[in-house]
């Protein structure tokens, strides 16, 4: 999973979904916290209201002032600092408090009759009191009654609940993110066949992409198919044009070859010999192009070189050609050597190398193929080989080696072409085992 790549659709989906989920959970938590707070406070306030009315009923008037009949109020108001308190404030400012208040001083505002308020204030020992204050008139006396309850115990419960809720939400969030990640990955896995197809498209095994893809990808796939169609048409047209040109040139070239052959035979002039060589070269190139055009016509273009099939065919042909020499031609390659490059290119390269080897060999030729990302080809024979200076010279010339190779009868021009095309390397030395020439080629995957 490419977590930090902002360009990845998967990452964007992950981030987007994670963000909305976190937002949702956060809002839910805030809403829950607020609701519980209001709910508990409303509940306690309504209880305080009832207690205030009970207190009002318990009030009796004596000479020395207001008296609360203890039997008529809840025991909890008698225990010191119990968290439940009341204060009765008379018209003249004198106050009667519950025993639970003990010597603590609660500041209670005066209320008009019928007026009531909810207050928050600090009680003894930092208790957080919710105070319900209300004004009444009893037996002609105006009284302000305040009834209070400590919110701390319920707050503690609430905080515990909210913490557990947050933990649960976090856990849920993680599970959801995990599930969501799986879903997203599953969805993207459906694109895998498409990628495979495009890969084999590059390898020339398929001509079109299957359009059975997720709806979102369908326009893209259709567009690619359209392009492929255009491309193959254009390709065919240009190959045809090349083929036609080559065909048209073939006649005149034959005539020229003929002419130079004749003239060099008669007077042996240097210029004519050189010109003849060049004409011969052009003719070879034309032949090659014609062959390619034919291949394009047969529809096998773009096929890959398959060592298992193609190498054996090639060796059979060579054995046929060099039947007289009774050569032992070995092919050394792994059973699962993967297909590589363009079939025609590799066949041309191998054909030339092997043909050359067979030509010079006394009895044995060996061809070794290996490598996955690169194709390594080694062709060895037990012929005379090259002397060291020749090897050095050929190695030094590098890519320009084709220019006079033909003169040496090695036919390496095409080999060099193919090696250049695949940005590869070409090396000559002496085979340690067979004692003849060893040609090593490394081709890179295009």
């Amino acid at each position, binding site marked *: 999973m490419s977590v930090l790549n902002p360009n990845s659709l998967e990452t964007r989906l992950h981030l987007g979904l994670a963000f909305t989920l976190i937002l949702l959970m956060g809002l839910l938590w805030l809403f829950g916290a607020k609701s519980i707070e209001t709910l508990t406070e409303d509940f306690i306030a309504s209880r305080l209201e009832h207690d205030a009315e009970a207190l009002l009923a318990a009030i009796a008037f004596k000479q020395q002032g207001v008296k609360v009949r203890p039997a008529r109020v809840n025991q909890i108001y008698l225990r010191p600092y119990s968290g439940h308190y009341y204060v009765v404030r008379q018209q003249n400012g004198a106050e009667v408090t519950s025993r639970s208040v003990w*010597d603590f001083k609660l500041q209670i505002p005066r209320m008009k009759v019928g007026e009531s308020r909810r207050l928050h204030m600090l009680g*003894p*020992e930092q208790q957080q009191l919710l105070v319900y204050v209300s004004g009444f008139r009893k037996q002609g006396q105006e009284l302000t009654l305040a009834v209070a309850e400590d919110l701390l115990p319920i707050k503690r419960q609430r905080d515990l609940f909210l913490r557990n809720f947050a933990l649960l939400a976090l856990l849920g969030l993680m599970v959801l993110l995990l599930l969501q990640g799986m879903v997203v990955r599953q969805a993207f896995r459906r694109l895998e066949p498409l990628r495979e197809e495009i890969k084999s498209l590059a390898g020339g095994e398929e001509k079109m992409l299957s359009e059975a893809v997720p709806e979102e990808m369908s326009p893209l796939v259709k567009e690619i198919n359209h392009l492929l169609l255009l491309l193959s048409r254009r390709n065919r047209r240009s190959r045809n044009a090349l083929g036609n040109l080559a065909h048209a040139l073939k006649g005149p070239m034959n005539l020229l070859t003929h002419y130079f052959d004749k003239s060099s035979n008669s007077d042996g002039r240097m210029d004519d010999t050189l010109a003849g060589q060049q004409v011969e070269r052009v003719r070879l190139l034309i032949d090659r192009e014609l062959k390619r055009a034919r291949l394009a016509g047969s529809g096998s273009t773009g096929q890959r070189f398959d060592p298992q099939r193609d190498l054996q065919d090639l060796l059979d042909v060579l054995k046929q050609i060099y039947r007289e020499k009774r050569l032992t031609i070995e092919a050394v390659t792994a059973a699962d050597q993967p297909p590589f490059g363009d079939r025609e290119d590799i066949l041309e390269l191998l054909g030339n190398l092997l043909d050359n080897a067979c030509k010079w060999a006394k009895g044995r030729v060996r061809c070794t193929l290996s490598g996955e990302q690169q194709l390594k080809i080694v062709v060895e024979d037990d012929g005379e080989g090259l002397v060291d200076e020749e090897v050095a010279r050929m190695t030094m010339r590098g890519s320009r080696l084709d220019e006079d190779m033909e003169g040496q009868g090695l036919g390496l021009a095409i080999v060099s072409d193919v090696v250049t095309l695949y940005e590869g390397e070409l090396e000559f030395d002496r085979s340690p085992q067979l004692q003849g020439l060893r040609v090593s080629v490394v081709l890179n995957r295009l």
Partner: protein
Amino acid sequence: MLISLLLIYTTLAADEGYEEARRLSESGDILPLEELLPAIRKAQPGRILELELERKRGRYLYEVELLDEQGAVWEFKIDALTGEILQRELED
């Protein structure tokens, strides 16, 4: 009859104790309860069950009953003016 009257008087007196305590703490003769409690809580955490203000040989004492987390009831005697813990025992 007299005994019952006396009983009513003493319970009433106990009930009125807090008003006496308020007057005394306002006049500075004893410390406010809130300032005395931390010392007791430090000695023994718990909830106050009962509280009485007594006067003995010119000294004001608080008798505090405390319920701890394990459900045991503790009894403290504390000097109401100095906050000194005079007696501490587990009630049977």
